[in-house]
């Protein structure tokens, strides 16, 4: 597989950042942030992947002693997903409030208003 998964992670980061910079709606910006963060999932899982190994969950088919992939990075990805979800929720709530107060959800127009 080579280093292709790392390249995919880099691509997701770059594309997400580009979307966040050029987005014309705050909700679109939050979605782009989620895309950029998705790169960390790919990176973490790529770091722990082992060719030919099973998922790190023992059962009657995967007995202890069989090769399994690294569970630590998978647990980190789980934490990552939870944090991403909570950050999105708070950002979306902030967007609702910004939309009520400034009557716009275009980040460019927000910059010209104050108060």
């Amino acid at each position, binding site marked *: *597989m*080579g*280093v*292709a*998964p*790392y*390249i995919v992670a*880099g*691509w997701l*980061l*770059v594309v997400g*950042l*580009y979307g966040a*910079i*050029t987005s014309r709606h705050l909700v679109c910006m939050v979605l782009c942030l989620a895309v950029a963060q998705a790169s960390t999932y790919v990176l973490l899982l*790529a*770091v*722990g*992947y*082992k*060719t030919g190994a099973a*998922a*790190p*969950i*023992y*059962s*009657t088919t995967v007995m*202890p*002693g069989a*090769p*399994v*992939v*690294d*569970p*630590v990075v*998978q*647990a980190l990805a*789980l*934490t990552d*997903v*939870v*944090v991403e979800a*909570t*950050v999105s*929720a*708070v950002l*979306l*709530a*902030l967007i*609702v*409030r910004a939309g*009520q107060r400034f009557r716009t959800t275009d980040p*460019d127009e927000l910059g010209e208003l104050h108060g």
Partner: protein
Amino acid sequence: MSRAVRAGVAVAALAVLGALIVWAVSDLRGVGHPPGVNSARVAPILAHERQAANAVNGVTFDMRGSDTLGEEMILFAAALGVSVLLRAARDPREVQVAAEDDVNRRGAISGALRASAATLVGPMIVFGLYVVTHGQLTPGGGFQGGVILAAALLLTYAGGQVLAVQRTDPVALVEVSEAVGALAFALVALGGVVFAGVLMANFLPFGEIGALLSSGTIALLSVVTGVEVTAALALILTEFLDQTLLRDA
């Protein structure tokens, strides 16, 4: 800076960033052959010393248990923050009136949506409870199962069972269970100090790997997390749904 100029600057800067990333990873060892031996040790250690079949949850709720305690608090604070942000701007009576109007309009919901929602809610709750309680054995656990359970509540809304949802007074119930979930996690963490002298120590009997009651506090913390995640997500969803009701009214 106009949009076109900003997009141009962004493309130039991100092209440099992308080139640096490609340069940085081109020398790395290929995916599929992690270096070192520690990555292969964690899962057998958790199976041997904690009797936990699911090594991912073993790491989350035991080895990195204190991190997950912090993560629970992040979730708690985020749900609290969303409610505070959205409730500050509205009058609870307005929401009540809007909800009643909404109930009167429920006849307009298609029968297919109502039927499929009513059919799916039961199996989804059973599946969510299964995923929450078998976190130590099979893929899943408190975080994943909690999301499924919260989705079952959202499905009830989508099917137009607002009355059924209101009868249980979701907000009060959800707020209480969120606090209970977060507090219970902290109490289990403190239980480690009381019974074993170390925060987050696994102080329950480990049982036998593969059994439902195995892996000590890993299984318990998974269930507690399931309560917390269900409540936090349900609270966040309820707040946004209330906001939608107001906009439609």
